[in-house]
Each structure stands twice: as C-alpha cells, then as structure tokens.
C-alpha cells in the first residue's frame, strides 16, 4: 500500500549545524506514529519540514506518492493534511463556531466572497464538526475565553475540516494538566481510527506515547536512532541512554 506520508533523507542545517541529518520515515494509512526525542534532537525542525513551514536542504517528502517537498503549508492543507500546534493557534477574535466555519469556507474555496454574510454559511457543517470533538455546547463562545483543553479540541475540529487523510500534531497535549492529556489523546485516537486518518505526532508525555502510538520513532541529534513498537523502543538501550543523558556520549 502507498504510504500516506513518506520522507526520504531529510536534511536541515542552521549555521552549519545539522539539526536534522538524513531522516527517513513512512506512515501507513490509519497509523498513529509518535516522534520523540530529548531536547534539541531535531523533532520540531523535522516536523516543520513535513508540514511545509521549513524548506529542507535535501530530501524528498511525498504525500500519497505525490511530491510535496517545498510546498507551502496552505498547499499541503489542500491536499488533505490537518494540523494542530504546540501552542494553540486559533482566531482569537472569533467565536468557536466561526473558527471552524473559517476552515470550512477555505476548504469550500469561498474566501473571496464579499457580499453574503459568513454567518449564514456552512453553519450546519461547522456544528457537526464541533459535535465530533464534543464542543457543540461552546459553539457561541468567543475562543479568546476558552479553557486550554477546549482550545486544543477546537484546533482538532479545524484540522478535520478538510476531511484529511493525515493529521500532523505538534505536542498535542503540551500545556495541559496531566489528567486531561489522556482524555484528549483518547478522543483524537478515536476520531482518527473511525475516519481512517493517519496521525503523526511529537510528544514528550511518555504515558501518552505508549498508550496511543502504534509505532514510535526516536530522534537524537538530528538522526533516527530507534524505530518500532512502543514496547520495543522502551527497552532499547540506546534510547534509554539518550534520555538519561551521558557525559561521555
């Protein structure tokens, strides 16, 4: 089967330092893949190349077999990739419903509409999306006053607006109280499984990783050092050493 997402030999340097040094990975349809690693391992750089925010110095990224290397994020979105951010990025001056509506309007290519009020468009669809993430009760609230966990759920709803086949989630549970984390990821996993959406996420809460990932990739100093099922990665001696640190290597 063609992988949903495939990267080969990704390289990115900053001032001569290779932050990402030849990373290759593939993601099967419907798979949940976690990308982990200690500080400075190159997770964010790697992630931002996959979502189009950074241009790789070398390497190829394919989405369902189609080359998307160096495409801007908005083009990647149009090909069916939804995203959530480490620090939530939503439209603070709009209501929850309007945030989702915005994503739907963009998907429907109606952004240049100058006349018909937006509030009369796609309301039912937006409400349906909010219902999927359990946010319908908050539809009318300004998103500037939401609790952080609800903002994360709102982001998820927006990411689902283009009926994606892939979700890229950067630290989906960062900034949340530990108790909420499991619930959010369980919900995400449930939605993704039901719709057959593949998920690639970075994460530093290991409970979340081991509870929800089908497969784990471990980065250190820009290179993949381990890859496999969570249980296998957990006992990998190299991985343990990297996480615990070592002054001599």
């Amino acid at each position, binding site marked *: 089967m063609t992988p949903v997402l495939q990267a080969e030999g990704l390289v990115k340097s900053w001032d001569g330092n290779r932050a990402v040094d030849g990373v290759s990975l593939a993601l099967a349809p419907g798979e949940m893949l976690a990308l982990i690693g200690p500080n400075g391992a190159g997770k964010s750089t790697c992630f931002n190349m996959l979502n189009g925010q950074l241009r790789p110095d070398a390497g190829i990224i394919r989405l369902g077999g189609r080359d998307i290397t160096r495409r801007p*994020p*908005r083009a990647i979105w149009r090909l069916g990739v939804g995203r959530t951010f480490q620090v939530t990025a939503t439209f603070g*001056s*709009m209501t929850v419903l309007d945030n989702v509506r915005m994503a739907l309007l963009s998907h429907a290519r109606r*952004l240049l509409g*100058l006349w018909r009020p*937006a509030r009369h468009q796609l309301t039912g669809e937006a409400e349906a999306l909010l219902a999927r993430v359990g946010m319908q009760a908050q539809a009318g609230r300004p998103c500037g006053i939401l609790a952080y966990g609800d903002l994360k759920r709102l982001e998820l709803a927006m990411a689902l607006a283009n009926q994606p086949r892939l979700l890229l989630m950067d630290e989906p549970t960062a900034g949340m109280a530990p108790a909420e984390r499991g619930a959010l990821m369980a919900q995400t996993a449930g939605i993704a499984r039901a719709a057959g959406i593949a998920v690639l996420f970075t994460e530093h809460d290991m409970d979340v990783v081991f509870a929800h990932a089908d497969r784990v990739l471990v980065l250190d100093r820009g290179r993949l050092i381990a890859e496999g099922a969570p249980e296998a990665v957990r006992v990998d001696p190299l991985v343990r050493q990297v996480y615990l640190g070592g002054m001599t290597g």
Partner: protein
Amino acid sequence: METLAVQALTGLASASSLFLVASGLTVIFGVSRIVNFAHGSFYMLGAFLAWTLVSHAPLAEWGGWGFWGGILLAALAVGLLGAAAEMVILRRIYRAPELFQLLATFALVLVVQDLVLLLWGADDKFGPRAPLLRGATEIFGLRFPRYDLFLIAVGPVVLGLLWLLFHRTRFGILLRAATQDREMVAALGVDQQLLFTGVFCLGSALAGLGGALQLPREAVTIHMDMAIIVQAFVVVVVGGLGSLPGAFLAALLISELHAFGILVLPRITLVLAFLVMAIVLVLRPYGLLGRKPEGPPPATEAAAPLPGPAPRWLQGAGMAALAALLLLPPFLGEYPLILLADFAALVLFAASLHLIMGPGGMASFGHAAYFGAGAYAAALLARHLGAPMEVGLVAAPFFAGLVGFLFGWFCVRLSGVYSAMLTLAFAQIAWSVAFQWVEVTGGDNGILGVWPSEWARGRLAFWYLSLALCGLGVWMLRRAIHAPFGMALRAQRDSPLRAEAIGIDAFRIRWLAFALAAAMAGVAGALFAYGKGSVFPSSLDIPRSVDALLMVLLGGVHSLSGPILGAVAYAGLQEQLSRLTDLWRLLLGLVILALVLFFPGGLARAFYRRRGA
C-alpha cells in the same frame, strides 16, 4: 565637471545634517522600538532655541564662544525636553500597540508646532553667520562655503563620537545590549526606564544639534519639522532601523542622489528618495545594514472579540442620526452643508483605512495616496476630457483601486513599521508626481473647475449625493468585513500560522483588501474634489494620511463604528477648535494625548464599555 564637484560637496554637507537627525531617530528606535514622529519637532526646537540664544544677549555679545556655546546649549536643552517627554508621556505607553505610540508622538508634533508658533511667531528667522566659518574657501579653484566644509566634517565626527559612546562607555554598551535583547538586559539587573530616558535624551539632543547647526545655513521656519522627519524616516529605514552606520550610509546615498538628481533629472528629485527607499525595501526588506528582528514578534494586542450585530442602543442612535442627516439638512445653511459633505467623505476615507488597519492588521501611513488618486482621477478627466461628474465618480474607485493594487503588491509583503514606511514612500511618490508633473496635474496650482453636474450643484443636493455614496461605501465595507473575505482577513491577522494551515493565502487576501480600501478611499477623494471644485497636491500629502490615521486610531480599530466616530470627532474637533482659537493644534494634540493615555482602546471602545458596564 566643476558643478559636479560642487554638487558632490553640497551633498556631503546635507548628508551630515541629515545623519545627525537620523542617528537620533535610529538610536531611539533601536532601544525603545518607538517610531518617534516628534523627532522632527525636536529638530525644529533645536533650531529655534539656537536662534534665540545666539541672537540675543548675553550670548550674542560673546562672539565666537557665544555662538558655539549657544548651539551646544540648544542641543542640550532639546535633549532635556526629549527626556521629559519620555518620562511624562511615552513611559506610560511602552506596552501599548505600536500605532498608539505613533499617535502619541504625532500629538507631540501638533503641540510643539503651536508652542513654537506661540513663542517665536510665524515669520522666518535668520541666524548670524558662523564665526570663523564665514565666506568660502577655494578648493581646486572652486569656491566652496566654509560652513558646508565644516558640516561635512561634523557628520563623521559625530559618528565617531557616537561610536565611542556606544563602545567605550557603560551606558553605550547597555544601550547596544538593550537593542538586541531588552529582556535579558533586565534579567541582568539593569533598570530599563533609566536606559529609555537616557536614550530619548541622547536622540533628542542629536536632533536638536542637527537643527541648531542649520542656523547659519538656512532660514528657521515653522515647517522644518515635517520636512526633516520625512527625510529622516527615509534615511533610517533605508539604512536599517537601529543601525547607526546604516543611517550614515543612507544619509550619504540620499543626499548625493538628491544633489546629482537636481542636475540630471530636476523633475523627479522629490520622488527620487522615496523611489530609492521603495527599491531598497523590496530588495532588502530590513534596510541596507538592518537585520531581521530576532526572537518572537512583539506581543500583539489581544484580539478583540468580533463586534456582533451592533447593540440596540447603538442601532437606535444610528437610526436617529441617519434620520437627522436626512431630515434636518433642508433647514441648514450653506456652510453647515459644506461641512457635512466634507465629513461624509472623511468618514468613508477613515472607514476604508479601517479595513486595512482593523480586520487587516496592517498599518498605512500613506492612505492619502488613494484618496488623492480618486480626486485626481475625477479632476484629470474633467480637465482633459471634459468628463462630467458621473463619469468621474465611477472612474475614481477604479483608478484608485488600480493604484492600490500596484502599491499594495509591495506594501503587504512586509509587516509592521517596514510595511508602514513603504506605504508612506509610495504615497510620497504619488504626491511628487502630482506636485512635479505640472503639465498634467497643474503642480502646486492644482486643478480648478472640478464641479459637480448641474443637478448636484446645489449644496443640499450635493450633501444627499455625498451621504448616499459614502453611506453606500461604508455599507459595502461592512458587508465585506462580515463576508468570508473579511473573516479571512481577520483570520490572517489573528493567527498567520493557523490561517496558512487551513489554506488561506494571506498575501492574496491582504493585497485584495488593500486594493479594495484604496478604491473606497478613491470615492471619498473624488467626492471631496467635487465638493471643493478643485484638487491640490495636498489631497495626497502626509498630513492628509495622518488625518486618516488619527481618525481611525481615535475611534478605535475594533469595529467599523470606530472610524466613523473617529472621523466625525476628529474633523469636528479640528473644525471647532480652529474656529475657537488659533492654537487648535495645541489643543488637539493635548486631547489626543489624553485619549491615548486614558482610552487606549479608542472612542468606540470607551463608548461600548460605558454602556456595557
């Protein structure tokens, strides 16, 4: 050959003066991130203070010592004034959005203008020749003013002294550190307030010195402030905000360009500097020696929740106002009707700028370009083709929109101060064309005889026409803001990251918004032209752009009711104050300062809040 040499030296002398002023501006910006419109006012104060000091007892009687002492004393006094302004006003608004700081410094400009008028009167002042530097020196057989030679030396000397200050003193080292990372400097125990006051003192003293040194060279006038601030902005932006060597380089470039431009292309000298600025900013968006600001972008103002349907009391008030505007005018005299029609045009002008600044989250210092484009479109059609008003009113938005489309392509690529400066540059280019292309535009004499068609010539009919067109324009803007397009515009303002991630092409949206706003400003400009029966370059000059900016900021950028209230309040205030007193600028400036300090959300916000509470 001889003229070339003389021109080159003249250019060098001008470059020195320009650098003095620009260096102060760039140093202040580097540390405080405030774009100080009032910098030109400090320059003017320096010149006037120096004039007073050196041409009156006791200094006037002390010969050479008195003259040079007076120059330095004036610079010092201006430095103290700058420090005082920082402590009393600017210190309170460092956390305010960039544009509010700008508004405050512009209010200072107004205040200083009237204070200077009050203290020194309107007539030009001529200082004495500089002792020891009278007359001319022969260089390679060419006679050259000694004072200009002195000025040529002053630029590099001041650059050198500043270099020493920034590298050899603790204060200077702290300033450089603060320019790079203010927060880290604070974490090391440095009190930034002292640093900021110090840098304003230094920067203002440099402006004052620049002004004082002009004394033997040219007349001291009450228009010095605006003339120099625009040039200094160009120099600072071309050199790279915050970069002293950049400012020096840019001052040389601009001054020499001007000196030689006069020989080769006398007709486009005014445009030249701005053309250079536009080219530099397009090729090097952060200036010649400027660097991209590091770290996260400055915290933007927390996005205000979208204004839903207007509250009932406001709807009621709006309806009542509309009814009054429809029913009362037949009972009004000629003058109130003229005023009302002007107000209508200004309301649409402000509302169009609001689209860029509010939902768009961009700044424009040059919105008058599109107001003027509309006005000139109507006037040129009338003058050269004898086109009637109806044609002019239809052509105006298309022409202005086209100009906005062209300029906008450059401006909306950049953000913040740089984008704002580029809008200013383009507006100045437009102004220069209107001013210098005399055959077509009539230059400074403008175009007369731009009258409405017969049916709209009566003041009452013209008022209803203005009300209808401006009402239509504002209504269309309102529709656009609430339509998907306006939502997308707000979306890219709220979160560029998220907007991009859901497929919104922010550049395209901003560009179209810019063009749309320009078209609406064009309608306002054309109406204004027909109302006055004439068009002058002043319809697209900087004060007109600033008017629009003030109207929007006064009203508040959060909802469309803001610019409407702001336009009426500003234009009304200006009108009332100018009738009451000659010192209307002073009062207006003080009012604006009070508003900035006490109602940083704008009039409309204050209104809503009062009602909501």
